[in-house]
């Protein structure tokens, strides 16, 4: 998937992936796509909840060798 911006949250733990994702999205335009990578084992649930609550759409989540890759569409 083509992303407008990529954010590396690997090695960071809760709450930082959510906080940094929020900050990155706030610097983007509606419809743009953020690719975020995280290793926090809670991040799959956390980013899903974050997306549900904020209205930013979680387009895709995949896991590659312990890294979660999220694609979020800015509201």
């Amino acid at each position, binding site marked *: 998937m083509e992303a407008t911006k990529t954010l590396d949250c690997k090695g960071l*733990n809760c709450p930082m992936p959510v906080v940094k994702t929020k900050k990155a999205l706030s610097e983007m335009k509606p419809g743009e796509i953020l690719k975020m990578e995280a290793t926090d084992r809670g991040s799959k649930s956390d980013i899903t909840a*974050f997306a549900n609550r904020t209205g930013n759409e979680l387009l895709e989540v995949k896991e590659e060798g312990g890294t979660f890759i999220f694609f979020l569409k800015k509201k």
Partner: protein
Amino acid sequence: MERGDTTMEEKKKRMAIIASKGTLDMAYPPLILASTAGAMDVEVTIFFTLYGVDIVNKKKYASLQVAPIANPAMPSPIPMPNIIGMLPGMTAMGTSMMKGMIKKINWPTIPELVKTCLDLDVKMIACTPTLEMTGVKKEDLVDGVILAGAAEFLDFALDANISLFI
């Protein structure tokens, strides 16, 4: 009603937290919940009272400590009775151990997390009677922290979806 749609935006969810403890381990939960909620577009107010004021005291917040005494959950490099925690230096040792663990998982420091919360528009209130009691001045507090009493907090908390006492 869909979560996160425009109808919900009109009235934001709210979380009200009272932070009453000033130890390193008890400073993290309010700040982690507040920063996460702030990132999730929740309106947050933290009311710092009693020892909790240390979390936003510039003279203290970088050096909060954790006490091993009466804290059997504290990990120990070697098994030992909890009463050992009363010995001189044990609090410093426990604190340094915990700071090591915090660093290992790349957690932000307390000052960093306080700043993160303020950047996310978390409202921080320092309890005025506590300041009177301890002689802490407004200049000692992190910029952005406001001074108020219980009524100001309650005014926000009465309309909150989540209220926590930590």
